[in-house]
């Protein structure tokens, strides 16, 4: 795939990729931007190559997911080092501006999602937010279809229960 075609594909999926990056960074918008930039850089430098086995969107989401996890690990390591006080790193929680900008319903949804296990959260986001099939969600999350289906069913049941318990 030529660099121009790659850029066009990335531009088309940019909004969706940003939404997925936010989900991968536990709602932290700054960390999501960071992860997305690092993902684009990986793709444009050829360190992440699209081999055509999955759809471009599925592959891009997998790259963003892995990159966000790498950045999270690095940030966690930096927090352990003494020089961390000099470095403004994210702690993995949504920043205050993001929380304030959210509507109440979205805030409740995000709070409920945050209580679910990571795999369930990922599969629910990919299916409901990104409109992927469970099979595609399984490919992005790197799990089997059966596992993804289990996460989906359990996550959905837990999320509905949590949202019902929340006062409207």
């Amino acid at each position, binding site marked *: 795939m030529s660099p121009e075609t790659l850029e066009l594909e*990335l531009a088309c999926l940019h909004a969706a990729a940003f939404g997925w990056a936010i989900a991968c960074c536990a709602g932290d918008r700054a960390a999501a931007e960071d992860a997305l930039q*690092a993902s684009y850089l990986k793709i444009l430098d050829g360190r992440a190559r699209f081999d055509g086995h999955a759809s471009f969107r599925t592959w891009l989401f997998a790259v963003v997911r892995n990159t966000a996890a790498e950045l999270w690990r690095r940030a966690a390591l930096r927090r352990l080092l003494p020089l961390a006080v000099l470095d403004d790193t994210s702690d993995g929680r949504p920043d205050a501006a993001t929380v304030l900008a959210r509507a109440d319903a979205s805030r409740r949804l995000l709070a409920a999602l945050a209580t679910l296990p990571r795999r369930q959260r990922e599969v629910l986001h990919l299916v409901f937010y990104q409109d992927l099939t*469970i099979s595609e969600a399984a490919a992005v999350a790197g799990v089997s279809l059966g596992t993804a289906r289990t996460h989906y069913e359990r996550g959905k049941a837990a999320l509905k229960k949590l949202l019902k318990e929340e006062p409207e």
Partner: protein
Amino acid sequence: MTERNDSELSDRFRALRREDAAATPPFDATLAAARARRAARPRHRTGWLAAAAVVVAGVAVALLLTRPDRQAGTIGLATVRWEGPTDFLLVLPGDDLLRTVPHLGRVNLSILSDRRTP
């Protein structure tokens, strides 16, 4: 198939997606920031390498300084030769004959003297 069969959850996620879409940074800006990050990356790598080199050097110096004196614990094997109290029993009369190369036409006097002993 049970995918997206819950309209209430779908509506909530759709609203969330609309909010995120409104706050998505422009693609060009994200790409420009990614390229700027590429330019800044070698500095980061150099910094990490320098930090790693400092750590390795520190560990090496610490090991050298804290290492126990190896000369004090060594034993010269050449100076220590233990002899058992019954070693003399292994010395047989005429065992020189077995250790030396015989020469034709020469008489070994030590053998002769051994034979004369009762």
